[in-house]
Structures are given as structure tokens and as C-alpha cells.
């Protein structure tokens, strides 16, 4: 199963629900990797709705596993993108053209959900029109609070900043604007004193 129960945390940490079909003037869906399962569940609950949907899907490591089932669900438009940056322009266009009443479905990793959410809100889509469901990897998108560099798909804590090389402790403190968790230097007082890295949530 691709779902994961996040332990309770601080208020800034995003929480996720389960996608459900909702009536709307347009249906816009975005998923990465195992997030496809959440979209397929919506399609199963309401096949008609799926036929009207504009779906953007980023397979990541899942390769072809979900592309055929998604195609079989027969969305109005299915766009397969190699990465999130590769589809942001399209997403921007689709969100901007979305009329009020459009329903947005975001499913997959936290990094994808967070970035697409920030983009949608910036364009003016009401938060209540956006549903999210976490699926797949619990990897995080982390911003180093020191050099401001963002490292994608962080799986361990602490980890080494991909930009400045500091050893960063991954906090639950989350920036909605950046769609990133904050990473803070863990050995500032005593350089080199870094606890062993453990897998997130292990």
C-alpha cells in the first residue's frame, strides 16, 4: 500500500486527506509516482468525472506502472511529464485558466503537493477547492535555512545540504510559500558532532 500515517506534529506541518470526487466547473488532477493510485480511486468512484478531467502525471520511479491504468480511465486530457519543473509552465497555464468552481486534486509526494498548492493559491484558486492525498515516498523537500538552497527528496535525518554542505536537522517547521521543510545546522556549536543519520520516520 502506498499510504502512510504521519505522526502528529506541529501546526505548520501540512496534513493530507483522501481525494473524493466533487462537482465542479472543471476537474484538474496532478499526481506523481504512487499518487496515481489516488487519482485512479477517484476515477473508480466517478468514471464520468474522470472523463472530464485534465490530468498531469509524473511517473518518477514507477515508470509505466500507472500510465496505462490512467490512460484506461480515459481522462479528457492526460499529460505525462518527466518531472515537476518540466510541467510547471503547463500547470500555471491550466490553473490560471481554471474557472471558479474548478476542483483541484493533488496526490503523491509532499514536495509535489506543496509546490502545486503554493502555485494554485498564488494564482487565486481558493484553498477549499484543493484536495490533497499523500501517497508513496515520505521523502521531503527541505530548504537549508543557512544557504537557502532547496534539496529535493530528502530521505534521512540529519542529511547534508546539497548546496552548502552543512549537516542539517530536518524540522517539521514548514513554509507554505516555499513548499519546503526547514533544515537547520545540527553541529553549529560543536562542528563534527553529528548524530548518525536515520531514515525519516524510522
Amino acid at each position, binding site marked *: 500500500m502506498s499510504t502512510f500515517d504521519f505522526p502528529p506534529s506541529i501546526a505548520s506541518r501540512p496534513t493530507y486527506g483522501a481525494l473524493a470526487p*466533487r*462537482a*465542479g*466547473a472543471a476537474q484538474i488532477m496532478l499526481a506523481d509516482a504512487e499518487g496515481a493510485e489516488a487519482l485512479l480511486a477517484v476515477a473508480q468512484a466517478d468514471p464520468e468525472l474522470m472523463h472530464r478531467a485534465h490530468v498531469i502525471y509524473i511517473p518518477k520511479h514507477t515508470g509505466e506502472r500507472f500510465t496505462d491504468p490512467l490512460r484506461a480511465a480515459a481522462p479528457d486530457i492526460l499529460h505525462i511529464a518527466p518531472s515537476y519543473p518540466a510541467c510547471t509552465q503547463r500547470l500555471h497555464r491550466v*490553473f*490560471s485558466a*481554471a*474557472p*471558479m*468552481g*474548478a*476542483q483541484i486534486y493533488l496526490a503523491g509526494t509532499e514536495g509535489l503537493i506543496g509546490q502545486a498548492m503554493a502555485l*494554485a493559491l498564488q*494564482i*487565486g*484558486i*481558493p484553498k*477549499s*477547492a484543493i484536495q490533497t492525498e499523500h501517497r508513496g515516498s515520505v521523502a521531503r523537500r527541505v530548504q537549508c535555512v543557512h544557504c537557502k538552497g532547496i534539496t529535493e527528496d530528502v530521505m534521512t535525518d540529519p542529511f547534508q545540504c546539497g548546496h552548502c554542505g552543512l549537516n542539517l536537522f530536518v524540522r517539521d517547521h514548514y513554509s507554505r510559500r516555499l513548499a519546503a521543510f526547514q533544515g537547520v545546522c545540527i553541529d553549529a556549536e560543536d562542528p563534527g558532532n553529528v548524530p548518525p543519520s536515520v531514515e525519516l520516520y524510522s
Partner: protein
Amino acid sequence: MSAGLEKLPVIVTAKVKLNDLVTRFEFAHASGKALPPFSGGAHTVVEMQDGAKTRLNPYSLMSDPMDPTQYAISVRRDAAGRGGSVFLHDKVQVGDKLMLGMPVNLFALDLTARKHLMIAGGIGITPFVAQIKQLQTTGGAFELHYSARSQALASYADDLRAAHPKRVNLYLDDQNQQIPLERLLSGQPPGTHVYVCGPRGMIDWVLATAERLGWPPEAVHSEEFLAPQSGKPFTVDLAQTGKTITVGEHESLLEAMEREGVDAPYLCRGGACGQCETRVIAHDGTLQHNDHWLEDDERDGSKIMPCVSRFEGSRLVLDR
């Protein structure tokens, strides 16, 4: 407490007949002071002394919200109503003094909206007139869709169209023109809020269409002041004050309490704001809920809105 307790003494400075049904009244502060600014969509409760009877009717303010020298309301003559509008039309003259309640806004623009889509029916145009003046000062995209029975009865349509030719759209019943609601509500840019003021049927139509098209509830705003309905007289025991009062046929429960000197809160007097909500301690009979405020599960005999709702039965005890 009820904002109705704070009153502004005003003098009628102009009475302008717009058409067969609608007359505008303009007011200045009776002692020449500045009137408080308000925000577009606000209403005031006009207090009229009709012989021994005090009439309190809410009207939307339609003057420029930032103009402290005057307030204006537009009143539709409702011959079948309880007499407040007819009294204003027939009896109130320039130079008369009246009391106004402090402006209260139950229909404010959401200033976080990227665009305001306004839908007006008939006299429901009045709050939008003030809101449009407000937006002219603050900037802000809007679009008005205004439906009226005929050109002659389309109050302010000419002024609005002259000032905002691209943003104001008029639909006339006698020309068989109808607001293309479905199309309008399915083509608005993200961040639009919709506002509707007009007859009940129009409000229901807009709310239902918006819901069907997936509009989030917080982006949909409506205002309708209900006039209290007449009905059979009934008697009420008021537990806090120990009074027993009788509500007359053409009087609301709120008015009856006020007549008897009971301090009862209110803001809108039209079943919309929730301010007058009163606990029902006991009843033997039927509560006739006429408000927009209570949720269905609250209409279980535990609460009543005295500004518009009535009672039929043998005994009613309220927590007042």
C-alpha cells in the same frame, strides 16, 4: 448588545422619486456633525415615528461610503407590506427628523477577492451602488449583472452604465432578457467572489447554481432582508423579565418585546444576522421559523429568531 441602541439623529435633506416604485431619501446629521463612514453593503435601521407606533425598517445604504456629509437609501414602495415603506413614501418629507441605527454590514465585499461578480435583482441594486463607489476609490475588479422588470423600473441603471459601460450589464424582464447565470458562473477567473441581492427566487437560483458548479461557499455571498410576516396573535411568557406579552397580528415578536420595554438585541431585523437569537425554554405548539439564520437541526424547538419568526399554540416561554 444590539447596535440598534446606538442612534444617529438625521434630517431628511432630499427626497427624489426615481420611478413609480422607488424613492431615494438623503440624510445629513441633524446637528451638522460628520456621519460615520461605512463599508459598501452596510444597512441602517430607519426609525420612524408613525403616531404612537415606532417603525424600524432596515435599508441598505447606497451613498458613497466615504462621504461623511450624507447617507442615502432607496426605498421600494411595498403596498402589500406592513406599512414602513408606504409611510416613508407618503409621510416623510424634506426637513423631517429621523433616527438611524449605526451602519452594520452583513454583506461586505471580501477584499481578498481578485474580482467581484455582483448579481442584483430589482431594489437589490442598492448595496451594490455603495460597493461600486467603494471599489472606485480602492480599486478592484467588478462586474455587475442587474435584472429589472423594465427600463423604467431599473433604478440607477443609467447612472451605473454611464459610469462603467464595460462592467454593468442590464437585463429587462419585459424584453425577455435573463441573466446568463450558468455561463457567468462557469467562466470566472480564480479568486472571484459572487454576491447576490434580490428576491428570494433569484438568491436561491444563484446559490444552487454556484453550488452545482463547485463554487466554494466562502466565495458566495447573499443578502435578503425578510419582512416580518403577519400572522395570528400569540402570547409569550418572558422568563427573565417576568413579563407576559401578546404579539399582534401585524407585529413581530421583536417589536412586541420592544413595545413592552424588553431589551432585545437585533442588527438586521430581517432574519439574516443571528443577533436576535433567543432560547426557547418551553413551548406547546408550533414555532414558525421564517429566518435564514438557524440551521435545520436548530429548528427543533430550542431557538427562535424574534425579528421574523412567529408561534402558534397554547404556550411559549422565552429566555428574555
